[in-house]
């Protein structure tokens, strides 16, 4: 069953002000896409959101469900830039929901809801999900081979929430190769068990298997280096705010996040992990 609500709160409820210090201004907690070498993190995050809206065929006036909506960056983008009629987000984090509500974004609604319990009153024209699938299966479930059924159940649900012809813009981290040295294995273990308890990143082939028989893969692009650069920028901003973080959240929080972000930079560099963006079309 992946991360429980308590576990999700470990990952995302450290404090909105903490994440605001080192994420981009709209607080995307997922990889950006760098299309030009000199782009800022802010610009690169907008590129990411634009690509996923295109992958999901998000049109003016349409309705979209954003699954695992974080602090609302994508909801805000779809409302303000893509002029959707309605964007609804679900998250398991109360802090994130508070931030979205505080932003008072037109045509945006959000609720604290597990996707396994989400039953929308109306079907959506499109769906987006940016790096939530990492919470669907636990390391133990992946080891015992239960993960594909869990991913497939997720894809079945999204299918049932959408109208015929809908597209689904999906972004996922990929688990490519296990490290072969102690330090890197322990660092990835720290990110997996301490920072994101209850979850594990997916393997590309597992997603390819699990989308069937609900979704057709129309496009897929990997962006390993983009996530390396994004996490590098987060780490730099985290360290730039070291004094403030130590004062407000203490040494352990700073050390944990410094280690986790350093691990990410290393993991994308060494091909342990990658990133993929998918355009999926409903099989009707």
């Amino acid at each position, binding site marked *: 069953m992946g991360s429980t609500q308590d576990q999700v709160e470990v990952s995302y409820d450290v404090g909105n002000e903490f994440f605001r210090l080192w994420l981009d201004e709209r607080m995307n907690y997922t990889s950006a896409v760098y299309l030009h070498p000199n782009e800022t993190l802010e610009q690169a995050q907008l590129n990411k959101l634009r690509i996923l809206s295109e992958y999901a065929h998000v049109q003016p006036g349409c309705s979209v469900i954003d699954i695992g909506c974080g602090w609302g960056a994508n909801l805000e983008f779809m409302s303000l830039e893509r002029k959707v009629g309605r964007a609804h987000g679900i998250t398991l984090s109360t802090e994130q929901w508070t931030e979205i509500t505080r932003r008072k974004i037109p045509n945006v609604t959000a609720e604290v809801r597990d996707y396994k319990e989400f039953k929308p009153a109306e079907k959506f024209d499109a769906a987006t999900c940016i790096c939530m699938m990492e919470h669907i299966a636990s390391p133990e479930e992946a080891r015992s081979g239960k993960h594909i059924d869990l991913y497939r159940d997720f894809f079945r649900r999204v299918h049932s929430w959408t109208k015929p012809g809908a597209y689904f813009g999906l972004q996922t981290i990929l688990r490519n*190769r296990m490290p*072969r*040295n*102690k330090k890197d*294995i322990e660092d990835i273990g720290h990110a997996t068990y301490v920072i994101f308890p209850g979850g594990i990143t997916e393997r590309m082939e597992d997603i390819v298997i699990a989308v069937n028989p609900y979704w057709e893969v129309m496009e897929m692009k990997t962006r390993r280096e983009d996530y390396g650069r994004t996490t590098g920028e987060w780490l730099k901003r985290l360290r730039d705010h070291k004094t403030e973080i130590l004062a407000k959240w203490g040494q352990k929080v700073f050390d944990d996040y410094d280690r986790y972000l350093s691990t990410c930079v290393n993991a994308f560099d060494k091909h342990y992990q990658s990133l993929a963006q998918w355009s999926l079309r409903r099989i009707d």
Partner: protein
Amino acid sequence: MTTNRTELLTLFHKMATEIAEKEFPPFTEQTVISDLGIDSLAMLELVGAMERHFEIRIPDEQLVGITTVNDLLAVVEKGIAAARA
């Protein structure tokens, strides 16, 4: 360079001793690796040492079912054969 089972076993013993930093009792190809006190982390280190030694790459999915010394050596042999094909 040809490598037979006896040589592989000797290499396994040498590398495992270095990684675990302890002496093992005599073991055979049927010995369960975890019974030697080699956990999954040390197993990956061992795989890495074999990969570097033979200049091969072993795909992760072949590591999933490994329990005995024989399982591990078979995967290494497969990697060597693939690299020479």
